[in-house]
C-alpha cells in the first residue's frame, strides 16, 4: 500500500493534457538544439519525450519542493545522454528553471550539461552517462527500499542499444533473484544505436522475450501513445509484488521531426536558426497528423 504523501493529492493531468506537455517538451528541446552551439542528443531526446512526460507529469511520486523525501519514487536516467530532455521535463514539473537551463546549458560550472551530474544538480538521483550504470544503481535503491519496508518505486529509463552492456543483464538477474517488484525499467526501444540500426549489426530481437527469460514481468507498448503509457503506469503490479517490471516502449528516434526520424545523423546534432524553423514546422505538422 502506498501512503498519501503530499504528492499523491491533487488531480493528475489527463491524457490530452499530457500530450500537450509532451509537445511543449519537444518544442523546448528543438529550441535548445537550435540555439546551443554544441551538439544535443536530440534523436534519443525526442524518442523518449513521451515517456519522460508520462513519468514526471503522471507516474512518478515526486515533489519538486521536497526532493530528498525518503519516500519519493526514485528515477534513474540510465541513458544519460537524454539529460536535457529530463531537465526540461522536470522544469515543467517545477523542479528547475527552464530559463536557467537554456541560459547555462553546457557552460562552465553549469548544473546542466550533456549528462546528469548529481553533484551539481540536486534533484537528479545519480550521475549517469556512461551507459549500463543505471539499472544496477536502481537495483541497489530498490533493495534498500525493500529492506526498509518502504513502498516507493524505483524507475529506470534505458536505451535499447544500452542494453547491449553486460551490466544491464547482471542487474536484471539480481532484480529477479531478489524479487524486486518495486523496480520498473522503461526501455526506449527506438531501434537505433549511435552508428547503426538495431538488428543490422547487433540483433536484439526477440527483445521482450529476453526480459521474459530473465523472469521479468514484461509490458509492451507504443512509447508514443500517451494513453498506453498512462495505462502501463496505472497497471503496474504493486510495489510489494515479487517481480520487476519492464515496459518495452516501441519508439522512433527523432520522433516528431520528419527529417530526424530514423536518421542516424540525428543521434546528436545541432540545428541552425533556419533548420530550427524547419524542425518546428515539422513538429507542428506531425502533431496535426496525430490529432
Amino acid at each position: 500500500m502506498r501512503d498519501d504523501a503530499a504528492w499523491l493529492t491533487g488531480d493528475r493531468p489527463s491524457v490530452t493534457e499530457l500530450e500537450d506537455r509532451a509537445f511543449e517538451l519537444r518544442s523546448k528541446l528543438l529550441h535548445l538544439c537550435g540555439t546551443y552551439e554544441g551538439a544535443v542528443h536530440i534523436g534519443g531526446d525526442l524518442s523518449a519525450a513521451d515517456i519522460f512526460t508520462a513519468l514526471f507529469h503522471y507516474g512518478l511520486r515526486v515533489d519538486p519542493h521536497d526532493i530528498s523525501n525518503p519516500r519519493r519514487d526514485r528515477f534513474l536516467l540510465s541513458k544519460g545522454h537524454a539529460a536535457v530532455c529530463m531537465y526540461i521535463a522536470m522544469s515543467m514539473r517545477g523542479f528547475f528553471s527552464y530559463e536557467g537551463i537554456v541560459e547555462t546549458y553546457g557552460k562552465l560550472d553549469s548544473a546542466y550539461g550533456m549528462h546528469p551530474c548529481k553533484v551539481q544538480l540536486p534533484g537528479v538521483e545519480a550521475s549517469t552517462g556512461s551507459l549500463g550504470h543505471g539499472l544496477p544503481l536502481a537495483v541497489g535503491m530498490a533493495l534498500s527500499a525493500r529492506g526498509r519496508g518502504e513502498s516507493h518505486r524505483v524507475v529506470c529509463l534505458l536505451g535499447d542499444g544500452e542494453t547491449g552492456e553486460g551490466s544491464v543483464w547482471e542487474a536484471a538477474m539480481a532484480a529477479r533473484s531478489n524479487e524486486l517488484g518495486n523496480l520498473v525499467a522503461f526501455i526506449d526501444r527506438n531501434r537505433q544505436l549511435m552508428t547503426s540500426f538495431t538488428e543490422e549489426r547487433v540483433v536484439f530481437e526477440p527483445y521482450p522475450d529476453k526480459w521474459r527469460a530473465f523472469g521479468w514481468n514484461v509490458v509492451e507498448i507504443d512509447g508514443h501513445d500517451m494513453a498506453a503509457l498512462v495505462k502501463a503506469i496505472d497497471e503496474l503490479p504493486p510495489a510489494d509484488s515479487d517481480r520487476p517490471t519492464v515496459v518495452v516502449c516501441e519508439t522512433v528516434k527523432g520522433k516528431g521531426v520528419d527529417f530526424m526520424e530514423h536518421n542516424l545523423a540525428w543521434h546528436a546534432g545541432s540545428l541552425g536558426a533556419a533548420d530550427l524553423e524547419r524542425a518546428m514546422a515539422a513538429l507542428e505538422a506531425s502533431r496535426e497528423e496525430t490529432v
Partner: protein
Amino acid sequence: MPVTFTFGEMLSARSVIGSTLAELGETHDNLWVLTPDIGATLVEFREKYPERFLDVGLAEQACVGIAAGLAYDGNIPVVSGMLPFLSMRALEQVRSDVCYPNLPVKIIGTHGGLVGNGGSTHYAVEDLALMCALTNMTVTSIGDPLMVGEVLRQSMTMRGPIYIRLAVGKQDVVLYEPGEHDVRIGKGIVARDGTDATIFTHGTVVAQALQAAEELAADGRSVRVVDVFTLKPIDEDLIAQCADETHGRFVVLEDHLAYGGLATRIADVVADRGIHLTAFERLGIPQVYAGFGDDEELRDKHGYGLGATIAATRRVIAQPSWPSSH
C-alpha cells in the same frame, strides 16, 4: 585516400585514423577493426573490408575480449572507441586478456582529458595511470593528427599491445610538418628547442606548451618543449639530457591527472636515475570531478591553462640553481 594538409592547419585525427586503417587493411589482410558503436569514422574500412569489421554495439568488455580472441589466432585487431569506457569498463579485459598474453591488440580512442564537454563520466582523466600500470602495455598520447597515422603504421610490427590516446579528434592543430621530426614509438620529440627550462607534455596540450614557449620567447626566455608522446616506455635518456641542457628546470603539462601520468613517470625517472633538478612543477588535472565547460575554460579553471603554464615556467626559471648555497 591520402590526407592532404598544410602546416598549422586543423585536421581531424579521426579522419586520419579512418584513412590509415583503410590503407593498412590493404597491406595487412589480418588487420581487424572493432568498435563498440563508435564507428562513424571507420566507414572507409568497413566498406572496403566488411568481413574484418566488427561493431558489437554497446559492449566494451566483449569488444576487447573478442579482439584478444582474434589476436590469439594471428590477427591484428584495432579497437576504436571512447577512452573513458575502453580504459575503465574494459580494463580487466585489457589487462588479463590482452596484456597478460602480450597480444598485438591496439586500443585507440578519443576523449582523453577534459575535452568534449560531456561531463565527468565522459572524460578519461585517469586512463594513462591505469594503462601505464599494465605490464606489456605501450602507452601513447598524441596531439598532432598526422602522427596518429604514423604511430598506427609503426604499431603494425609491434608484438604486444598499444594504447593510443587522443583528445576529441575532430579539430586538431597540425603541429609538425611531416618529416620534420623522427617519430618513433618510445622516443620523445623536441618540438621546440630551448635552454632555460623544459616543458614536457603530450597530447592536445602540446600546442598550449608551444604557445607558452612562444610567449616567453618574447621576453627573452628560451624554453624547450618536449612532446613525450610515448609515456611507456618513456624516453629516459631524453629526460636526463634535458636536465643537463636546461639547468634541471622542468615543467610537466598534461591533460590528465597531475599525479599518475607523465609527471609521475618523469619524477620516477628523476628519482631512479638520481637526476638533480633545480625545479619541478606539474600542471594537470587536480583530484576533482571537473564538470562542464569547454576545454580551454576547464584548463584555466583547474590551473593548467596557458596562463598557468607561462607562470609555472617563469617560476622554474626564476628558481636559484641547485645547489643554491654555492
